[in-house]
Structures are given as C-alpha cells and as structure tokens.
C-alpha cells in the first residue's frame, strides 16, 4: 500500500523527474490535494482568492486617490513651509506596523466606542437580511480592515507625489500657465498630474506587491476569509501543497502587476516606445 502511494507520487524517481511532473501538473492546473482540507488545492484557492482581490483592489484605489488629493492639497497652500504637520504625521503613521494600527483601531472603535464590529466578514443572522442589509453588514465589517490597510499606503503615495509635485511647481511651463491665467484646478489636473504618472505607476506596482503581503497580517488579525489568512493557517499547519500553490499565485500576481505597469507606462509615455539606442 505504501509502495503504491509512493509510485503514484513519483517518489522513487530522481528529483528532476519529480520536478518535471510538478511543472506539468501546474500547467494543467493540478496543484495537488491539500493535507488539511482534503479537497483539491485549486478549489481552496478559488474560494479564497476573490475576497483578497476585492479587498486589495479597493484599498489600492483608496490609497492612490487619497494620497494624490492630499499631496495636491498640501501643494496648493501658500504659506512658506506647508505640510510640516502632514510630514510629521506621515512619518509617525509610516512607523507604526500594520497590525498595531489594526489593534489600535479595534480597541478604539469596537471595544470603547462600539461602533464597528471587530472580526469576520459577517455576523450571525446574515442570511435573513435583505440585500441592502447584507451590503450594509459587509461594509460595516470592512471599514476597520480597510482603514488599517490604506493608512501606510496613503503615506507612501503622499510622500512621493509631494516630492514630484514640488519639483514640477518650480518649472517654467507651470509658471507660464499661471501667468496666462489658467485656473489652478486645471493646472493641477491637466498638466501636473500627467507628469507624475510614470513615477506613480512604478510606485503603485511596488505598492501592489506590498499590499499582497500586508493583507497577510491584516487578514489574520481581522479573521477575514482571504488568501492571506489561508496562507498563514496553511503554514502553521504545515500544509505543503497549499503553501506552494499560494506562493505561486502571489508570485504570479506580482509578475502580472509588473507587466501591467510596464504596458501602462509605455502607453502613457511615448518616449519609451521610440528608443533607438541599445
């Protein structure tokens, strides 16, 4: 019996053959059967992946919009040294690890003030509610995790956008636009921000990969049903097929984001498609 299992797993053959069969299986989507859940790993990942996608994407959109808005707001102020408070605050928020922000938020809003629920995606009595009730329940459960995930990201986007905007504000063409009487809002939205975009795309690609691993800690803390929590529990239970598959999925996502970032950058910046040197 042990011999049959061993030959079915190809354990008697040399390592290269095992690796080859592993690759072949992956290309056909067969990651194996997880030790803990006893169902194919693909099904497990398929169940947990949409939530992480939705969570990371919504947090990412929030981060970019709020970060850039904050940077333009600070840049518009006329005082000689604008944004000192924002700088100090951003350094403070950047220094707090993600899980401590999460724990602080849980303590403040769930234990003391009792406004937002502290864990899981839905509480009991979920199936009896109407559609609007279900949506409201999910939203009220997601507020705290979203805040704890977006805060460090806002700080990073704010810091980088502020540097670039400040360096662009001194340049000549912006001064000409001001002197021509173009409205400030149009200057910012139509002229400065398109110049930020290349740097912002490379930054957001790095930020997406950080989100994929930052979601790990936040999901474990708030007990949300996503890839992060699944990976952590798989590692703690030594569920090797699941660990390998989840690392593969996260690596694929990072590569896909990088690829997308490159395509976007080439689409925006026409200089990149015209390079003639090698």
């Amino acid at each position, binding site marked *: 019996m042990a011999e049959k299992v061993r030959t079915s797993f190809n354990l008697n053959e040399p390592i290269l053959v095992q690796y080859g069969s592993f690759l072949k299986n992956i290309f056909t989507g067969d990651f194996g059967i997880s030790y803990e859940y006893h169902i194919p790993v693909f099904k497990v990942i398929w169940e947990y992946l949409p939530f992480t996608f939705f969570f990371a994407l919504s947090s990412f959109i929030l981060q970019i919009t709020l970060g850039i808005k904050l940077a333009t707001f600070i840049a518009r102020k006329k005082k000689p040294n604008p944004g000192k408070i924002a700088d100090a605050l951003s350094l403070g928020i950047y220094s707090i690890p993600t899980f401590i922000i999460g724990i602080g938020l849980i*303590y403040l809003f769930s234990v003391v003030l009792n406004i937002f629920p502290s864990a899981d995606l839905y509480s009991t009595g979920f199936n009896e509610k109407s559609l609007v009730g279900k949506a409201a329940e999910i939203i009220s459960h997601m507020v705290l995790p979203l805040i704890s995930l977006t805060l460090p990201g806002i700080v990073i986007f704010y810091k980088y956008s502020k540097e670039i905007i400040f360096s662009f504000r001194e340049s000549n063409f912006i001064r000409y636009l001001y002197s021509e009487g173009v409205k400030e809002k149009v200057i910012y939205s139509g002229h400065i921000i398109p110049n930020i975009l290349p740097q912002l795309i490379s930054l957001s690609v790095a930020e997406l990969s950080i989100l994929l691993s930052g979601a790990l800690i936040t999901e474990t803390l708030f007990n949300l049903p996503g890839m992060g929590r699944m990976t952590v529990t798989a590692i703690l239970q030594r569920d090797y097929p699941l660990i390998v598959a989840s690392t593969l999925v996260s690596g694929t996502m990072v590569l896909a984001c990088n690829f997308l970032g490159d395509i976007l950058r080439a689409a925006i910046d026409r200089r990149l498609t015209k390079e003639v040197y090698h």
Partner: protein
Amino acid sequence: MLVIIALFISIHKMILGAIENFVLLILAVLIAALALLLKDKIKFLRSAVKGVYVIPFVIIMIALFAPILSTIKPDLILNAGECKLLPPLSKKIILYKVDENKIDGQSDKIVADSFAVGHPVKVYTKRKSVELDGTSLLWDENKIKAETIFFPLGTDEFGRDVYSRVIYGARFSLAIGISSALLSFIIAAVLAYISSFRFRFFNRAAERIAAIFLAVPSLFVIIFSISFFGSNVLVLIFILAVTGWMELFKILNGEIKRVVNKDFIVSSYMLKISPKKIFVKEIIPLILPSIIVNLIFQVANFIVVEASLSFLGLGPGGNYISWGGIIVSGINYMPDAWWLILFPSLFLFITILVLNRTGNKLEKYFNPLLK
C-alpha cells in the same frame, strides 16, 4: 572582520541571557570612562548633541543594560493567582515566613494584597486560604518578613511583570535588527566586490538578479522559508538578511561605479595594491554615509518584520521575549487589560519612529542637495 564576528557572538550570547549584572556594571563603567577620557580626541563626542540623535543611543543602552534596569526577571511567575492581570502602578506585598531550619532562612513565600495594623490579611497559600491577623504579623517581627513588589506597568495573564518583559524584548528585537542588518551588509559588500572587481561580466547580471529579488514581496518569502526550515533565531537572522541585501547592493554598485575611475583609486591599483585592500580600506570609507543611512532604515524594517512574524506565531518562540509576542498574547485580554498591548506597542512605535527619523536626518546631513 574579527570585530564583526565578536559582535555577532556577543549579540547571540546576549539573546541567550548569558551576560550577568556584574559584567554589565563593568561595561557601564568602562563606557563612561572611555567617553570621558577620549572626549577630546574623538570628534563625534565633542559635537553638540541634538535631540533626535540621542534616542537611538538611549534605546541601545536600555537594551544592553536590561538586567540592571528591569526590576524582576521577566519570566518569573511569582504567584499567578494573586498577581494576575494587575493594572499599572500596583503593588503587592510578599510575606516570608522566617524558618531557622532552612538554609537561607526563608521558606514559603506568601503573596498578600496588603496589610495594615489591626486588619486581617487574607493570604493564599498552596492549598487553602488563611486569614492572618494583621497585628500578630507585626508583633512577631522575627517570624515574618515583608517585602513589596511594585509593578510599574502591570502584569500579564501569568503574573509576569510587563515592564521587565518590555525591556528584555527591546534587547531581543534590537539584537535581531542589528545583526540582520550587519549580515545583509556583508552579503551585499561581498557581492558588490565580486561583481565589480573580480568578475566584471557578472555585474549586469547581478543587478538584474537584485532587481528580480526586490520585486518579490519579502514577507511571503520569509514566511515560506520559515515554514520549511523551522523557526529559531539564527535561521531568522539569516533569512532576514537574505531578503534585505538588495537595496544596499544597488547603492554599493552605483557608488563603486561613480568612484572607481577616480585618480587615487587608479593610482592605488597601479601600485599593485590588491583590489581587496582597495575595496576595504579606500572605497568603503568613502561610501560609508549612504551605507549607514541605508542600514539604519533596514534595522527599522527588520524590527517591524520580526514583530509581524512573532505576531503571526512564526517567531522564535516561547523562550525569547519579543514585542510582537507580548502583543499577540495580550489581544485576548483587550477589553480588560489595555496595558498589555499599549506598552509594547508604544516601545515598538518609538523605536521605529526614532530610527526612521534619524535615518532621514542623517540623509539630509550627508547630502545637502536633498533639501
């Protein structure tokens, strides 16, 4: 080289708690004496001390001299039933029953709430609770001895003093951060030396490899490796260093390229000084500012990663006291015992904030163009 090895060994020993109070007192006296004697010769000690540069040194000193600063040993569970989950600034009284038959004259320790003249004291001994009359305690002075223990920051669920645990946790986190940073510096320096001086064709490939490793989220790789190799301290330090050398390598590469064609380097090379000596003795002191700034940021980063790992339960474990470990065991008591989470988080936050701010200030100090 020998200095770095000695540093590693002492840090590792420090983690294991083999340094005792006596050695630490000698060390404190030595450091103070050296600072006073060499004050005129070392420029660094003469300059005016600005506020933010002091705090990392204070934290390092706290971490080094932890056994002296902490009041009680951090693993000591005195009387869990009595000392459990005390709020900060609470006192307990230990009563010793003096027994001449025993060797040091002390026998059962009894922890009591408080006692005042005339009031009965309720004490919890091993099997039953006994009410002792307060007055008779005072009258039999040679039979009962009393001592108060003071918990500045409260106790956790096992009766261990939070203040001592936080200070020993500073020692552990700082040791891991600094040793991982030094190890990553060694890896990056060796790779930079090999790819710039020995096998120059390898340089571009090494840059690309570093960029590839930089694109992967490091937390995933660390957790993945820990799941395969187990989780003890040396594995942790090694893996942290292996995921963190890339940025330092890029900086070293850029700086070496900028410097290697200068006249003095070329003339040293022409004088048949070996490339290794040129690298160690001439190039690295030139680049040292950017290296130090990057290392400070890496130490902060490694402390955060180690705290996150202990939070997830993947840290070195129960023998070592880490801030993340204290926090994660304090979540269960969050509504009742806020002090279990607040103080380790506060220390962690202050350490990382101060390291980041010092890095920023040093960066602006070394590179005046960055204003």
